[in-house]
């Protein structure tokens, strides 16, 4: 019997380092920023980091060049932590929503809205037909292909999330809504028009371009997918319209949702090879691999029972806290999932979501714990299945 092995991969964003943020804003760097670049360059093994340190010390560095350095740092950070499939944590993008909208036509900015506590996002309104002047992930992918030693997975923000995170001033009737009993059916139809417009004219052309450049794993990020329980069919339809007939491994990322809502709608999403889902946020921190120990993972049996046997990208790191999961806690979460699925080959391991709200120190420790915990889970399973004697 072959040994069990779980693939570990990233999910999305990492924090932007202070030397990138300040350079982009035209602010002066202080010694702690330089030291950050120096120490992390050494720590994760960024080749030629001294060149960056010198540039930062000289001042007046080109923000785009500094962003590429930041991208190299994040690639090495994940590789150094042992993560097997990586990306650069959004260093070359403004943010998952803003980057897509900034590079599309048919949208206008409407300012900053609070996400929670002191976290915010920029929000735009659809004001016309959606268009793509040119694919907006090509330069990033070409750069990362040259920078990464590990396999790449490219996140692309999905059509439904872009639609539901936007106001829709284009399809929403401008008159007659007030007191007119403008019902859900009309609201959903308006969203459908916008979502499918985005899927056809923004997402799909980007996917085609990435595949043309050699991308073999694209993750469609859909953190907004379950926002409206009665629009899940639309999320599924937009995913299918985006990927149908394209030759690539497509996964999707879902987070911070009532995952029960996705069923049975995603039974129709057979083009999705893997669901990367955040669970740790809902789970306990105590060890144990029984169902009672792992309440945050109760819903995973529904992913197991999907008719097309997708892989589950098991979120094992709570990205909303500096608490660093122990490798043993990660191990137990994986062992519980394996127990539920019965087939270790259908489990891979990832954080709940992007780690951009954590410092690099915390993100790095969490990722290292994730990798170490994954190895512990493999050992436990391999021990359990080792031939007697």
């Amino acid at each position, binding site marked *: 019997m072959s040994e069990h092995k779980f693939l570990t991969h990233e999910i999305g964003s990492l924090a932007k380092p202070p030397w990138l943020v300040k350079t982009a804003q035209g602010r002066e760097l202080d010694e702690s920023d330089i030291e950050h670049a120096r120490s992390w360059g050494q720590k994760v093994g960024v080749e030629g980091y001294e060149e960056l340190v010198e540039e930062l010390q000289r001042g007046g560095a080109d923000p785009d060049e500094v962003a590429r350095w930041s991208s190299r740092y994040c690639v090495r950070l994940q590789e150094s932590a042992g993560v097997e499939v990586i990306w650069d944590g959004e260093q070359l993008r403004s943010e998952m929503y803003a980057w897509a909208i900034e590079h599309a036509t048919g949208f206008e900015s409407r300012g*900053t*809205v609070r996400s929670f506590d002191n976290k915010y996002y920029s929000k735009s309104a659809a004001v016309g037909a959606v268009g793509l002047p040119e694919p907006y992930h090509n330069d990033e992918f070409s750069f990362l292909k040259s920078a990464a030693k590990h396999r790449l997975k490219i996140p692309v923000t999905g059509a439904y999330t872009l639609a539901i995170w936007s106001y829709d001033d284009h399809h929403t009737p401008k008159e007659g809504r007030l007191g007119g*009993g403008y019902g859900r059916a009309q609201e959903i139809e308006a969203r459908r028009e916008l979502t499918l417009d985005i899927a056809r004219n923004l997402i799909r052309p980007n996917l085609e371009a990435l595949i043309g450049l050699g991308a073999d794993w694209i993750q469609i990020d859909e953190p*907004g997918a379950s*926002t409206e329980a009665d629009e899940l069919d639309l999320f599924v339809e937009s995913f299918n319209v985006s990927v149908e007939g394209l030759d690539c491994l497509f996964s999707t990322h879902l987070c911070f949702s009532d995952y029960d809502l996705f069923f049975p709608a995603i039974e129709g999403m057979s083009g999705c090879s893997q669901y990367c889902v955040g669970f740790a946020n809902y789970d306990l921190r105590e060890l144990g691999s029984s169902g009672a120990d792992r309440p945050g993972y109760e819903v995973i049996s529904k992913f197991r029972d999907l008719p097309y046997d997708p892989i589950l990208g098991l979120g094992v790191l709570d990205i909303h806290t500096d608490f660093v999961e122990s490798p043993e806690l990660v191990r137990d979460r994986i062992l519980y999932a394996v127990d539920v699925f019965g087939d270790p080959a259908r489990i891979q391991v990832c954080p709940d979501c992007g780690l951009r709200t954590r410092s690099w120190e915390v993100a790095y420790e969490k990722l290292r714990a994730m990798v170490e915990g994954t190895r512990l889970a493999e050992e436990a399973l391999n021990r359990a299945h080792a031939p007697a004697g």
Partner: protein
Amino acid sequence: MALKAFIPGIYARSEELVQATRDLDRGRTTPEAVEEQVERDQAALVSTQQDAGFDLLADGMLRWQDHFRPLLEAADGLETGALTRFLDTNTFYRAPKATTATPSLSGPLAARYVAPLPGPRILTLPSPFALAKGTGVTPKTMAQGVLAPALGALDAELVVLAEPFLAREEEAKLDDLAEALEALAGGPKLAVWFTFGDAGGLLEQGVAELPVEGIGIDFYATSLTDVPGGFPKLLLAGVVDTRSSLLEEPRELAEFAQRLGERAERIALVPNGDLQYVSEPVAREKLTRLGKARTASVEAAA
């Protein structure tokens, strides 16, 4: 018809306050500097409300993380739970989590959560149903143990109890909410504000009979014709859509208020939910237009 206007709920933060709080989280500024910016935001908001001719002032709840957190901080037996999406927005809150069957307020809300204002005011708290949702505690127990003591320590012309969930429930029943509201009798005047949802079913069930002064309805989801004639309560008419960046036309709002006046004697024009779901410049413009609609409506009626 008596017509008022005011803005319950959490108001949007200015770009300056957004930046200040971001800087605070990144260690680039001090809590004192953020406090100063909060006070500038509050002063600007009060001034905008006064210019708009609002009858009751709100402080905008700019220090509130969400509708629940200050109560959870002040209560024994309640704590913050998982980060949870608020309806169909990209805004999240920490869902209340009960650690006992009978949570109770251990002290009044911290003073920082209720800013002093230069005139009659409204305050917004979660409805007992919203506070109890998902905790396993009944709305009545939440009302008795947490909300009643909180209300007892507050001074406001009207306390608006925000209820975003009930109107969206498929088989929404008013019984639990009604029972909980009975437990809040004897304090300040109350209104239940059914935000972001079609309240047609609740109106049909007799929501006007709830033991409160006012009932808030989202008229972007609810048909005017669902409001029964002779509506006996103060009707908080949600006529500004805070889930849309489209700006309302004051004339259309005023005309709507006139039509509504055929069904309700006392009306307050309000948003259909918190203004924090649009950016501050959009929120300010919507607020201003709400004031213009009130003025136009009052003039038309005179």
